[in-house]
Every structure is written in structure tokens, then in C-alpha cells.
């Protein structure tokens, strides 16, 4: 394992940016601890780390949003000299040619791409707008980089990938020499991600430097020249990408061995959930379902693949009992459901893991114990004559904290003090403890670090072993291909028939996710056979 920090060009003349000994403390928390990082011209550096490793803090210091307690940032001037970047001054970072593409785009949806790009670069008070120069410059940028977008379209008509291109063009238009991309592939299909990587490589070849913040290892290995790994605020490793391998980086990020999720073969049982011809029309494909049919069986994980915003939310709401279909029927264990109500669903053995665990999964100001019991406070176990049985609630919480390794000061701690991974464990403890028959897991590992992700997978696989049907909605193909038995693709509110994971061609899946391959929605999910649950 080539983990030791070795930088190939120690003092090379083409150094663009140097972060030296950056330390930033928030009270007792050391967010960045003496971090050194160099970026050379034309180099793509990947900054890897779990949540809370200090990636965002470091980038905020680079951009002048925070002032480092110690250490300094130096940038090569355009004329070749080297000067320190004024701390705490975002304008200085912009002037030095550092551009940022945020994970959540900062575009005005009602303006055209061109408007968005020139916004803020032209004087406000001027009678005539002359944009021939701007357009010429952008044309040149587009042809040189392959970042092709129709600049006259209003941004809301663009696809996510095109919006991202506009963001990148915006930075390049401002003569960025260093581009920082925060989790750029989170919203892209695999094909779009590949095309982004090709573009970044091309831009790097023309001398642009790139820092890419990521946590998907495969992507980092594909695109970067060099990898720096942060953990707990420290830089724990740096290496040339050519010397790196998947496993060693994962261990470096987590600081311990990561158990690989493994699916054992198992013959699926009887159908648990069956949707037939379900339509929910909300007037917009992102929030609608059109004639969806699918079946989830006992002891099976049914993956739902798709790019964010293609009807996953509508499907999840339906299975969570929060909305009812306009047409079509929902059967659970052969009973046609007429009463769509979250309380009834939860009490009837349906475990629901919400997509946004902070927003829908917990009440921050209530205690850990109260959050674990929240679905069941009306049941006899936890109340007598309307008065809460705090002893029982506490006892359950103590068990859950131990069994699910929820790291918290105790059952009476406020839930908002927990980290994202621990909140997810709390939710798993809440819903899985009751040995559910059907599990809706909506983006269960999104935003979690590698360790917590593998814990979530282990729990879902365990529930599958115990005969639960799991519906796994995810945008992460690796996750789906690792633990699902079958996969359906959702696009624009249509759901394809299920394909056995072993028989899946990754690029075909990508095309289906992009809506370029016909989704055959007429047939219900195919009946799986035992040989399909092959281990990958």
C-alpha cells in the first residue's frame, strides 16, 4: 500500500496554489489540523474524506469564508511571482482566479445561461448591453473544452448536466485558473459523469487546475492525477492516483478495515408489495407516477435506480403511506390497501427510512429516546391512559443505542446533536427493531461515510435474510448493484420491469436512467428465479 505522503514535484515551477499548515478550530473541535496541500498547473487533485473530515472547512478557508487560525494560502500570480492570499476575503480568491462549482447550483432559473454567466461581470447602469464580446469568449471556451450548452435557453429548461456546464463556464468566463468542484457527480447519470470527467481532463490539459471534492472512490480513481485523503481534520495520506487502489483508499478514509457488503444467494418468497398501474398525477414528471407496476418479494431487495427527481419521491411517499394513488391498486400481502395513512402503515410492519433524514426523520429538539419511540407512542407498550411510560421508552432506547451502536451521550440527549450517520442508525433502530415485513429505504446511505454506509447495507441485508422485502431507492449505482437482487429503473414517472442484478449491463442501465432506452412499463416485475441472486 502506497499510503505515505509523497508528492512528486516538491518545488516545481508550475505550482499554482499552496495551502501550508492550515489549522482551524471551532471551540474544542479541530476541523483542520495543519493541512498542507499543493496544486500544480494542469493538475486534477481529488480531495477525499468522510463527512466531517474537514474538506468543506478547508475549501471555505481557501475561498475566504473562514479565516484559518494558523497557516497560510499562497497563490502563483499570473506574472509568475508568488503571493499570499488575503485571509477572509472572498474577493481576493476570485481575483486570484479560483472558481467554485457548488453541489447545489447557484443559478437564476428564469434567466438564460448567458445571462447567468455574465451576471455580476457587467456594470449595472448601462443603456445598451453589448454581449458580442462575451459571446465570442464563451464560444471559444465551449469549443476548446467541449462544454456545449445552448446559452439562450432559460436555465430551468436545461438538464442537470447542462446546468453544471453553465456553472463551469461561469467560472471559466471569470478567467478561473483553479476550479473547485464539490461532489460534482451527485446529480449526474453515469454517462453525464463520464462526459464531465472527459471535459475536466481536457481542461486540465490546457493548463487549468482542478480540485474535486468527492467520496465516490471509483470516480476519483477515474479522473484525478493525485489524491489527498482527509480524516478527522488531518491529512492522512496523499498519493499519485496511478499508485492508488480502491481498498487502500477506503481504509485510509475510515481509519479501519471496511467490511465489504456481500449478498448471499437466497430464493425470494411470496410477494409482499404489489403495485399495479399506479398513477399519481401531480402535473409534473418529477413528482408523478404513470402506470407503475412492480412487485417486491419476501427476502428480496428490489432496487429502484434513477436520476434524482424522476418520480422517486412520489413512489416513496406512496409506500410510506403519505399519499394515495389516483388510479391503480396497491396490495400488501394480497390485501388491497384503501387506507393510506402513515400511522397505519408503520403499525402494520412497514419500515420507512426517509430520504431526508434531518428533515423527515427526526425531531431535533426531542431526545434520542423520544425519537426512537415516535412511531409507537400511541401503542400500549409506551403509554397508559394517555400518559407516556418514560421507563419503557428509555429502556427501548438503551437497547437500541447498544444494538445499533448509536453514538450519543445517552437516551436523553437531544437528537440534533447526533451526526448524520448516527441519525441514520437511530432511524434504523426505530424501524428495524420491529422485524418489519416490508422496508422502504429511500437513499439510505446518501451523504454517509463509508463506514456508516456499510453498516446500513449490512442491516438491510440482514433484514432480507430474515425474510423482509426491501425497496431500495437509490441514485448510487454501486450501492444498487452491490446489494439489490433485482433493479427497476425509474424515469419521468415510469418504472421499467425488474431486471435481475446479475444480468444487468451497466451502460444499458445508464441509458435507461437518462430516458434514452425505452422503459417497458406495461409488464409487472418479472418473477425472479433462484439463480438471479448471484453475488457480485
Amino acid at each position, binding site marked *: 500500500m502506497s499510503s505515505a505522503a509523497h508528492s512528486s514535484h516538491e518545488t516545481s515551477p508550475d505550482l499554482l496554489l499552496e495551502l501550508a499548515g492550515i489549522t482551524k478550530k471551532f471551540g474544542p473541535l479541530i476541523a483542520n489540523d495543519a493541512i498542507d496541500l499543493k496544486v500544480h498547473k494542469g493538475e486534477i487533485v481529488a480531495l477525499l474524506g468522510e463527512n466531517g473530515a474537514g474538506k468543506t472547512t478547508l475549501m471555505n478557508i481557501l475561498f475566504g469564508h473562514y479565516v484559518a487560525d494558523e497557516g497560510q494560502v499562497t497563490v502563483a500570480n499570473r506574472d509568475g511571482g508568488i503571493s499570499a492570499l488575503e485571509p477572509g476575503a472572498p474577493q481576493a480568491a476570485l481575483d486570484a482566479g479560483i472558481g467554485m462549482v457548488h453541489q447545489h447550483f447557484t443559478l437564476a432559473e428564469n434567466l438564460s445561461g448567458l445571462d447567468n454567466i455574465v451576471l455580476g461581470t457587467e456594470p449595472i447602469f448601462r443603456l445598451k448591453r453589448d454581449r458580442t464580446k462575451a459571446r465570442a469568449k464563451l464560444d471559444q471556451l465551449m469549443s476548446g473544452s467541449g462544454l456545449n450548452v445552448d446559452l439562450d435557453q432559460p436555465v430551468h429548461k436545461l438538464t442537470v448536466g447542462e446546468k453544471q456546464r453553465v456553472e463551469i463556464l461561469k467560472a471559466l468566463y471569470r478567467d478561473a485558473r483553479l476550479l473547485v468542484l464539490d461532489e460534482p457527480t451527485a446529480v449526474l447519470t453515469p454517462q453525464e459523469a463520464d462526459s464531465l470527467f472527459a471535459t475536466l481532463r481536457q481542461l486540465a490539459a490546457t493548463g487549468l487546475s482542478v480540485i474535486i471534492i468527492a467520496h465516490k472512490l471509483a470516480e476519483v480513481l477515474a479522473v484525478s492525477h493525485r489524491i489527498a485523503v482527509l480524516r478527522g481534520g488531518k491529512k492522512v495520506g496523499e498519493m499519485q492516483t496511478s499508485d492508488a487502489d480502491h481498498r487502500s483508499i477506503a481504509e485510509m478514509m475510515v481509519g479501519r478495515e471496511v467490511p465489504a457488503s456481500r449478498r448471499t444467494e437466497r430464493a425470494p418468497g411470496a410477494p409482499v408489495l404489489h403495485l399495479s398501474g399506479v398513477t399519481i398525477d401531480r402535473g409534473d414528471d418529477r413528482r408523478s407516477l404513470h402506470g407503475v407496476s412492480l412487485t417486491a418479494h419476501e427476502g428480496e431487495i428490489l432496487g429502484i435506480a434513477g436520476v434524482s427527481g424522476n418520480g422517486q419521491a412520489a413512489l416513496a411517499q406512496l409506500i410510506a403511506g403519505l399519499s394515495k394513488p389516483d388510479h391503480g391498486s396497491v396490495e400488501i400481502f394480497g390485501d388491497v390497501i384503501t387506507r393510506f395513512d*402513515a400511522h397505519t402503515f408503520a403499525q402494520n410492519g412497514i419500515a420507512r427510512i426517509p430520504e431526508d433524514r434531518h428533515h423527515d426523520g427526526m425531531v431535533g429538539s426531542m431526545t434520542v429516546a423520544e425519537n426512537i419511540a415516535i412511531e409507537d*407512542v400511541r401503542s400500549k407498550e409506551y403509554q397508559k391512559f394517555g400518559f407516556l411510560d418514560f421507563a419503557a421508552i428509555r429502556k427501548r432506547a438503551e437497547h437500541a443505542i447498544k444494538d445499533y451502536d448509536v453514538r450519543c451521550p445517552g437516551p436523553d440527549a437531544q437528537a440534533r446533536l447526533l451526526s448524520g450517520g448516527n441519525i441514520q442508525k437511530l432511524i434504523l433502530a426505530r424501524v428495524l427493531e420491529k422485524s418489519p415485513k416490508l422496508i422502504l429505504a429511500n437513499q439510505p446511505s446518501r451523504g454517509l461515510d463509508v463506514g456508516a454506509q456499510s453498516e446500513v447495507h449490512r442491516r438491510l441485508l440482514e433484514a432480507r435474510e430474515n425474510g423482509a422485502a426491501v425497496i431500495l431507492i437509490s441514485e448510487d449505482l454501486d450501492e444498487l448493484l452491490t446489494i439489490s437482487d433485482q433493479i427497476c429503473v425509474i424515469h419521468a414517472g415510469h418504472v421499467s420491469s425488474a431486471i435481475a442484478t446479475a444480468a444487468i449491463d451497466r451502460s444499458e442501465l445508464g441509458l435507461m436512467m437518462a430516458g434514452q432506452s425505452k422503459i417497458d412499463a406495461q409488464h409487472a416485475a418479472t418473477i425472479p428465479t433462484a439463480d438471479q441472486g448471484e453475488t457480485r
Partner: protein
Amino acid sequence: MIRFEPRSNPGPIFVYGVPVFAAIIAILLAAIPLALAGAPILKAYGLMITGAFGSIFSTSEMLTRATPLILTGLAAAIAFRAKLWNIGAEGQLYMGAMAAVVVGSGVIDGPSWVMIPAVMIAGAIAGALMLIGPTLLKTRLGVDEVVTTLLLNFIVLLFVQMMLEGPLKDPMSMGWPQSEPIIDSAILPPLLERMRVHLGLIIALVSAAALAVFVKRTVWGFEIRAVGENAAAAKFSGISVTKTMILVAALSGGLAGLAGVSEVAGTRGYLATDLSPGYGYAGIVVAMLARLSPVGVIISALFVASVFVGADSMSRAIGVSSYLADLIVAMSLLCVLIGGFLTRFKVRFDRKKTAG
């Protein structure tokens, strides 16, 4: 540049100390308008204290004033806990008072142990209905309850005025727009001989204790807290947000209605349009000072009542405007809001200038 950084976990000193500290600061700040009015400051403070606590009579007056404030304070506290912004306690108070008059001015008669509960229940139901309407509009159609409850106050006051000029008018009132008096068996009896403080105070204290237990220890209280703190998560977990909101509306409106009953059947004896000098609105301040804690409401209502009664008597004695009392109450609210902000955030002063 000044920056605000969130505090991770404010300790009990902050939680309990900030309101007390804010009240003290507000009283000290009152020296400024006193000085501007040319009053002798120390003497004025002395007169305020004797005005509220100097004799049994003045303390009784203070407690009489605190009674409706506790009830409207509780009404605001429970509603705000669930993020139901009930600004309509004033109107609910008047509807409660009017219901008490309708039931308690001679239509039915009976012993006190029948009549007192009867007027209380009538008042509470009337107040509750006044808030359930706007709450249904909010949950069904998304109509902003701040607007509806606030505007209903004026509608109710005009409605009461109309009723007092018409069907409810006391023929013996020599033309004054006031209702017939509450009959003796429905009157909330005084707690002390020849003093005004009455049974309403006990009702208010019991309500506060009951509400505290309700919120903290019952399933419904649990659901109210969950809906108030994160309605989305409550809904996801299977709690009916609509039902919870209606329960809260019934409790909040009912408590405000009880304040009206207490005033009309305890303090005044009949209904007129000057029954409340803004107790419904002052209840919001009381609840905020108490940080929405039911037990805290008792303390903050006593504070607000002392300031009102003390400043009243002081202003009469040395001839400054009694609006000073409003000023002190308003300043303590501002101090508590600032204090609440400082509880949640640390203030950092950076010497470095920022460009751009």
C-alpha cells in the same frame, strides 16, 4: 466585522438566567424615560415596588391583574409550541366572556358548583371555536393564521359591541352598553375578604400545572411537541398534523376563553367592551418571556402584572405617564428576544476588514 456562531448546547444558566437578566435590564433601562420625564428615579422605583407589593391590597390588585395574563399567556404558549401563531387571544377572551354572560346572567340558575363550571365550560368552548376556524383554514387551505386570528379580534370586538347595544344590553344600565350582571351563584368568589383577587387565580394556576403535565407527560403533549418542532418528521412518523393542530387550537382558544370568563365572572361582574385592556396581546409577551414554558408563564405573568400595577400607582403618585408600564414590558420582551438570540449564538468580533 461582527459574526454570529451557533452555540452547540446552551447550559441551564442561559436557559433560566436569560429571562431574569432581561427583566432586570429592562427595569434598569426604565430609568432613562423616567429621567427624561424629570421624575426622581430612586423614589419612582420605590413607589413601583410599594405599588405592587406594599400592602395586602396592592398585592391583591397585582394578583388580580396577573390572573387573566396567566391564562392568555398559557394560550399563547401552547399555540406557539405547536407553531400555531395565535394572535387572536383577545378576541377569544371576549367570546369566552360573552358566552359566560349568555349562560351566567340568569337564563339558567343553580348552585355555585353547577353554575361556575357551566360558565367556565361555555367560555372555554366559545374561545376554542374561535380558534378552530382559523386553524382549519390553515391546515386545509394554507391560510395564514396570523392574519385571520389578528383580524378576528376586531370582528369579535365589534360583534360584542353590537350584542351589547342589542340583545345582551342590560335594560337597567341607564343606556350604557353593558350586559346584564352575572348572577351571584356564577360569580367566582374572592379569595380574601374585601379584596378583588378571586377564584380565577386558582383556576389559572391549576391550568398552568395541568398544561405543564399535559405537554411533558402525555401522548398528546408528545405529538404537540413533535409537530411544533418538526411538522414534516411528525407527519412522516404517522402523527396527524391536522388533528394535533386542532387539539392545540381547542386548548389555546379555550384557555383564552377562560381568561374572559375569569374577568367577567371574577373581576368585573358584567360584560362591557372595555373588559380587557389588551390581555390577549399581553399574553403573547408573557409567553415569550416565559419561553413558552407553562410554569414559566406564572412567573412572567406575575412580573408583567407587577410592572403594570406598580407603574400605574407610581405614575399617579409622581405624575408621569402610566404608559411607562407598557414601555418596561416592551423593553423586557426585546431584552428577552436579544437574550434568546445570544443563547443560541456566540458573537464574535473580527478585527480584520473584509474586502468587497
